[in-house]
């Protein structure tokens, strides 16, 4: 019998020390930190930029950056120059800058939470790398630094134009905002790591995944609505300016020399504040990465093992009464939506967005209907966004497409049942708010109902026209699969919300956003290119 081993191999005995040395040397040579960074950059580049479209992406990105600078310039021009005189000593300026930083930081923690969760739970190439002799500590360190940069880039893309325009209009010192952004990114990554690591230990890997997603979603929503709630409670309006201009609040603020203003001063260009903030944040990140990198491989292995644990039991033991295909499809869609942790957190976020209008409603109940009109666009927008996500899940993320296709039902029946399930789920979330609104201002509530329906319809049509076959687990990446669909969904949502608000306020300009939303939805209806 012939031996299949290569001539020089020593399969039957122990490897010689020179072989071991060569193997060790090769491993060390290849899997360096630099090599991992190169690997990560290549993956990130190919993830974001489709093949052969580098120039297109560069041109579009440049145009967006220029447009954002234009918007930022208009915004910054609204700030009176005198408001920023001796800014680092002005309680008002320090408070405004600090609130902006806190809001940004909250948003970045939400981003980082999602990125860290992905690093632990999405297997991708982790199994390959962890089963290789490469160092998992190096991989972890590189991935966390890469995530920090990604978080800074993502938020920076939107924020940096404002920093540039502040520097242009009010002094070069504002470029310190770049350093604050980096420091916030490092700090948010540190916090996300500590929270995820802590949850992993305390509540186990399965619950950590859900909790981390929920925390991320709640923090993301808090970043947007956090300032609105105190403003509503204090003044009964959504305007935060009234709140932060309040002399009683300004009077109780800490002295300008207080350390609490350090980030704000860094954003204004104070060199000492910048140095301290950068050093503290990156030291915290480095220490956390160093501390957690030892257990990284173990956490990933534990996280991977959760799918092999005993499945969650359902309470029911009896068959339901779904005796028609439409009922079976609706029941299945609703059941899957309710059992999807990511969706639960997304829905929670949608509900949180409705907290400010609910508070406003409560504060102004009994006032004239005009005040309540401000609620309508918020409800319409939230309904449209929720419908977009749910429609994607129901239409594109069908986990058993063969089963549905081979079932003896007409194509439109399956689609109709799925759309009904989406509409029902949205009605559960938005319905109570519309009902409460109807008690105070029936006509306004009626407009809200009609335009919520239109927003749900548009979002569903867009998701139907741009449908692609995907897994439910890809929900987080759905916006990347079709950026055109995402843009269309966002613009129609804004347009329907705007139209509803204007109509509720009795403004005839509402026809303009109605036309825009109709045109976008119509264009998507005509587009059959990707629907096969």
């Amino acid at each position: 019998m012939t031996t299949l081993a290569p001539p020089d191999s020593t399969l039957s005995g122990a490897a010689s020390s020179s072989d071991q040395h060569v193997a060790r040397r090769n491993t060390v040579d290849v899997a360096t930190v630099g090599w991992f960074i190169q690997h990560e950059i290549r993956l990130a580049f190919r993830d974001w930029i489709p093949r052969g479209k580098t120039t297109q992406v560069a041109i579009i990105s440049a145009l967006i950056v220029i447009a954002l600078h234009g918007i930022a310039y208009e915004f910054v021009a609204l700030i009176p120059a005198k408001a920023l005189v001796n800014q680092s000593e002005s309680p008002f300026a320090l408070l405004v800058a600090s609130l902006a930083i806190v809001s940004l930081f909250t948003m970045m923690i939400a981003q980082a939470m999602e990125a860290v969760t992905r690093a632990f739970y999405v297997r991708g190439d982790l199994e390959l790398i962890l089963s290789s002799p490469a160092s998992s500590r190096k991989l972890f360190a590189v991935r966390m630094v890469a995530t920090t940069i990604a978080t800074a880039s993502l938020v920076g893309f939107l924020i940096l134009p404002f920093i540039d325009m502040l520097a242009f209009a009010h002094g070069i010192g504002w470029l310190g905002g770049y350093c604050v952004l980096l420091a916030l990114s490092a700090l948010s990554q540190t916090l996300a790591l500590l929270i995820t690591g802590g949850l992993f230990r305390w509540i186990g890997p399965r619950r950590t995944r859900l909790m981390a997603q929920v925390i991320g979603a709640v923090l993301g929503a808090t970043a947007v609505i956090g300032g609105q709630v105190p403003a509503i409670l204090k003044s009964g309006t959504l305007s935060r300016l009234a709140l932060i201009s309040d002399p009683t609040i300004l009077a109780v603020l800490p002295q300008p020399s207080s350390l609490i203003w350090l980030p704000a001063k860094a954003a204004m260009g104070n060199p000492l504040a910048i140095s301290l903030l950068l050093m503290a944040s990156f030291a915290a990140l480095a220490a956390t990465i160093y501390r957690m990198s030892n257990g990284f491989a173990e956490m990933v292995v534990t996280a991977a093992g959760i799918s092999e644990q005993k499945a969650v039991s359902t309470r029911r033991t009896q068959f339901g009464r779904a005796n028609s295909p439409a009922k079976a499809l609706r029941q299945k869609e609703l059941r899957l939506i309710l059992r999807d942790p990511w969706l639960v957190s997304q829905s929670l976020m949608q509900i949180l967005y409705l907290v400010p209008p609910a508070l406003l409603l409560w504060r102004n109940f009994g006032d004239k209907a005009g005040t309540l009109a401000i609620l309508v666009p918020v409800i319409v927008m939230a309904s449209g966004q929720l419908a977009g996500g749910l429609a994607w899940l129901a239409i594109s993320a069908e986990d058993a497409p063969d089963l549905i296709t081979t079932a003896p039902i007409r194509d439109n029946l399956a689609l109709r049942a799925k759309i009904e399930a989406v509409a029902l789920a949205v009605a559960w979330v938005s319905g109570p708010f519309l009902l409460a609104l109807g008690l105070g201002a029936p006509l306004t509530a009626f407009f809200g109902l009609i335009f919520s329906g239109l927003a749900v319809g548009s979002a569903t049509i867009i998701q139907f026209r741009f449908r692609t076959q995907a897994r439910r687990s890809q929900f987080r990446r759905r916006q990347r699969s079709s950026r055109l669909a995402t843009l269309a969904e966002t613009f129609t949502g804004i347009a329907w919300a705007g139209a509803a608000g204007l109509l509720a306020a009795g403004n005839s300009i509402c026809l303009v956003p109605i036309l825009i939303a109709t045109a976008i939805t119509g264009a998507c209806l005509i587009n059959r290119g990707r629907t096969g």
Partner: protein
Amino acid sequence: MLTNLDRPDSAATPPALEVRGLVKTFDRPAVDHLDLTVRAGEFYALLGPNGAGKTTTLRMVAGLLKPDAGAVSIFGIDALADPVAAKRITAWVSDEPMIYDKLSPIEYLEFVAGLWSIPPDVAEHRAHELLDWLELSAHANQRCEGFSKGMRQKVALAGALVHDPRLIILDEPLTGLDAGSARIVKDVLLQRVRAGVTIIMTTHILEVAERMAERIGVIAGGRLIAEGTLDELRAHAGKASSSLEDVFLDLVNQEAGDRARPAENAA
């Protein structure tokens, strides 16, 4: 025992599947004017090398792909003209079990029964029988997310059987299954054939085809190159006492040679 639909007299029964001139072209012809007839109540194995057109053929029969040309008839029903009627008596099981992670097997079967409009009391009884039979009763109320490949495949198979189809189409149903799960699946399939159900199955495990199938079709380059019982195939290949593996490889190599020759001549 599982309930079954009343089977008509076999003499009067049209073929379970009749395919005529079926064509499907992607970047190259995947199925090339294929003719195929499967009799009612038989276990038919469709063999062929990778890329031969087996899965494409079966996906067209199941209504998952639209053919470029040709006709598909299931128990006399024109599956292209009246797909809903054809689907009512057909089941499809793919190699990758597509089930819902967040549903339990019983909920999955409830859903499938709803799609096929089976009365709930009938479906419930059948579902529990199937779960017993496939040794899934202990997991009936657990979500499928933690199930192994074998368990998932058994759930998918239960879904295919819960509406009591007359024709079951299986694409590589035994891929990745352990010996125990494979045995259960094979037993279930053989029992269904004994009950009068027609089964068409693709497989790369030639031993399974050799043991289970009454007739075997060999497909290559999108065309049926040989068909018959194992003895008929042996005779066709001129290898009287060979195994199916030898016969299959011989037939496929012959076909590849036949197809290469005109190209060489043209060159």
